[in-house]
């Protein structure tokens, strides 16, 4: 942490943004109570809390995306009342959402400048906008092109573009809601650099993350929320990761990663030979054995998601052979795979995972409908039962079972999604970004869950951009770059450096055993 800047933040008396007794209720459900908070210029202020604690809700209130049911905001000492996010942005407060919020049909530059296009005379000045877009993209470390269409890009790339959009103009307060949940090391570092720069320019940064090491590294002050209530604000120097976690959860936390199981030599559960996706953009062969966690690492756009989507028949693909549990899959489809015992949990929970406008029960049972309701009729009682069990087992924090999936907090949506694919009782699970947006307490629960699964003779493939997770969890790691596996790491070889090295440099495959 930058001590000088920290000191500056401490002594600057006048907060740039102040929340006074903020509260928010949706109908009878109160999700945020009496939050009073000072945000000072030139500080990085982390907000931490469990899933569903109300972090995103608070951020929406601060940035005009939602209006409080009680309390008010002050900017530079005067009371303000943002009618909408546009007013808030005009006042210098901008929020980068937890979920992607971009116009999918427009290009990157068009999205960045939407609503404030640069013009030359009557015409839009695409040249200038592309130029400035390229600059901001470079600043946040996005490898995208200003003229790319957003819907064609990997989700993580879209996340960076959202951040770029927020940084396009000079701001007083920049709010980042889990900006790194999907980013890999290199991008995270670039982002941390950006945040440091903002701080040195006197911008206040509100930062939400479940990666506590980031918080420790970056924050000047930390505010903890629990169950919609503010627990308190501390100088970051007074807290270590462990204390933060305990403040969030209200109890002591156990060891994060379960012990590793070592290499398995049993006959593989999943054998993929010569899979080619999107007409050769991604090509790979691999196998997964019972009792192992296989990690897949790589940078944004390396093609990991594409590979698995191709394997599931969700993209044009073609394979030498695929075997699941001894069954040969002739034409891959989600359903065929599911019957053979393989399921895939998507990284894109908003676009491909959950029906945001549907209630929880239909979402939970959509994939396993045939096993929940064996006949042609729906077993509604069975669905409610399944929902109750899932809420219990996966610790989904909902205040009413009749909510729509979109009304859950991000982390709780992720848990619902996990519960959904697990309903089919698979023997191989492929999870893309398993703990995306999940709080520290639940993370270890999910790791334990994966461990238990694997201990029971099943297998798990984890695609993760969070290096510590990959390293802490996997028994074996495949690293992908440019649509090909470039290295395989096992046992002691699995370290953050080796993964990064293999992901970034393909020429000399010294990070591990090279793969043909």
């Amino acid at each position, binding site marked *: 942490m930058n001590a000088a800047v920290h000191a500056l933040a401490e002594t600057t008396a006048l907060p740039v943004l102040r929340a006074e007794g903020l509260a928010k209720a949706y109908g009878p459900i109160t999700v945020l109570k009496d939050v009073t908070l000072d945000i000072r210029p030139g500080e990085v202020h982390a907000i931490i809390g469990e899933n*569903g604690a109300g972090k995103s809700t608070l951020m929406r209130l601060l940035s005009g995306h939602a209006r409080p049911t009680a309390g008010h905001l002050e900017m530079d000492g005067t009371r303000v009342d943002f009618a909408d996010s546009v007013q808030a942005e005009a006042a210098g407060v901008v929020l980068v959402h937890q979920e992607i919020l971009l116009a999918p049909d427009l290009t990157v530059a068009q999205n960045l400048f939407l609503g404030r296009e640069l013009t030359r005379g009557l015409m839009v000045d695409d040249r200038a906008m592309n130029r400035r877009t390229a600059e901001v993209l470079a600043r946040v470390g996005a490898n995208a092109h200003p003229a790319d269409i957003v819907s064609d890009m990997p989700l993580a790339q879209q996340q960076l573009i959202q951040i770029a959009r927020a940084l396009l103009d000079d701001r007083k307060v920049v709010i980042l809601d889990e900006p790194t949940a999907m980013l890999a090391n290199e991008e995270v570092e670039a982002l941390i650099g950006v945040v440091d720069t903002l701080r040195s320019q006197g911008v206040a940064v509100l930062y939400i993350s479940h990666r506590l090491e980031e918080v420790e590294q970056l924050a000047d002050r930390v505010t903890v929320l629990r*169950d919609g209530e503010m627990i308190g604000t501390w100088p970051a120097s007074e807290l270590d990761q462990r204390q933060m976690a305990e403040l969030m959860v209200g109890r002591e936390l156990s060891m994060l990663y379960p012990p590793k199981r070592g290499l398995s030599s049993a006959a593989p559960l999943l054998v993929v030979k010569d899979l080619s996706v999107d007409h050769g953009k991604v090509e790979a062969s691999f196998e997964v054995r019972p009792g192992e966690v296989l990690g897949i690492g790589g940078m944004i756009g390396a093609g990991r998601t594409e590979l698995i989507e191709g394997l599931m028949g*969700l993209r044009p693909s073609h394979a030498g052979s695929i075997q699941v549990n001894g069954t040969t899959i002739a034409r891959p*489809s*989600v*359903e065929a795979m*599911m019957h053979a015992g393989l399921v*895939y949990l*998507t990284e894109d929970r908003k*676009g*491909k*995972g*959950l*029906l*945001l*406008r*549907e209630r929880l029960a*239909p979402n939970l049972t*959509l*994939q396993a*409908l*045939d096993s929940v*309701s064996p006949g*042609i*009729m*729906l077993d509604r009682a069975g669905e*409610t039962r399944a929902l*109750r069990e899932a*809420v*219990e087992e996966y*610790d989904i*924090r*909902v*205040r*009413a*079972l*009749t909510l729509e999936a979109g009304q859950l907090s991000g982390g709780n949506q992720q848990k619902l999604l996990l519960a*959904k694919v697990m309903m089919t009782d698979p023997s191989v699970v492929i999870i893309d970004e398993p703990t995306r947006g999940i709080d520290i307490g639940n993370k270890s629960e999910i790791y334990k869950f994966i461990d238990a699964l694997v201990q029971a003779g099943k297998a798990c493939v984890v695609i993760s951009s969070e290096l510590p997770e990959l390293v802490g969890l996997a028994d074996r790691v495949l690293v992908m770059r440019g649509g090909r596996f470039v290295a395989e790491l096992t046992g002691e070889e699995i370290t953050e450096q080796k993964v990064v090295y293999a992901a970034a440099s393909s020429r000399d495959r010294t990070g591990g055993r090279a793969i043909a």
Partner: protein
Amino acid sequence: MSSTADITAAPEKRRQGIRWGELAPFIALAVIVILGALINSNFLSANNLLNVVTRSAFIAIIAVGATFVIASGGLDLSVGSMMAFVTGIMIMSMNAMVPALGNWAILAGAGVALVVGSLCGLLNGVIVTVGKIEPFIVTLGTMGIFRAFITFLSDGGSIPIDRSLREAYRPVYFGDFLGIPYPVLMTIVVIAVGSFLLYRTKYGRRVTAAGSSDDVARFSGVHVGRVRTMAFVIQGFCVAVAAICYVPRLGAATPTTGQLWELQVITAVVIGGTLLRGGKGRILGSVAGALILEVIANVMVLSDMVSEYLVAAVQGAIIIIAMLAHRFTNAR
């Protein structure tokens, strides 16, 4: 954990609360009926009401099918022409079977109609899902195709049903059971079966999932294409059921049979609260929508207020106003 106790308490209570938004079409219907009664005292006569309700059976039955198609994320503009085509084929096959089967030809013809209707729906569904073309365009195309077929079959004239069948078949439209006309009974059956399918079966769940998000459904192992194709088949089947009730009414198929019904059907479905973008279906609402349209037309004729030239304008305006009212009740 924020207590499991209050989690379990909440859902049941919610369920029982009245959702005003869903009642909007019924309220609109009631308002229009009351207005109708005020404007002309004949409106509430048993005879008139029975006529109106019976007449609306066709649009209502087809609208039930359309609710499936629209809820699944599709659209079917071909229903009117399909209706004419199915009617034509049905009459021709009945006429052909009379010598052999006598009055049983009616039943056999009805069977033919159901098969042909379902096949027409299948055609729409397959082109939409396998060809991955906008349903708007596909069904606009098949609308032209079916219409041309019936024109061709009838040589541009009409295909009347065999005289010997008319009397036996007539009651299917004009008869009643315990005072309830058969077409109305048929509508009730279609509503019941449709509601069961949409709300109580796995298939129905998949229909709304497919309409709600193509991708999510696909990623969850739902065969979106099959589900949507099936919705078109259900639509075709409903068209055939409507055709079976329709034939005894006029006894012939002509190139103008069912003209512009597609617009009425879609309007009924939308007035009924189903969103055109898919993901939700309100079968009873669609039926209320069909009734609303028919009642408006009836009240227009019974009242003497507008010039014959302007009837269409007033109807258009009333529909827009009904939707506005809908919006405001919905906004709570």
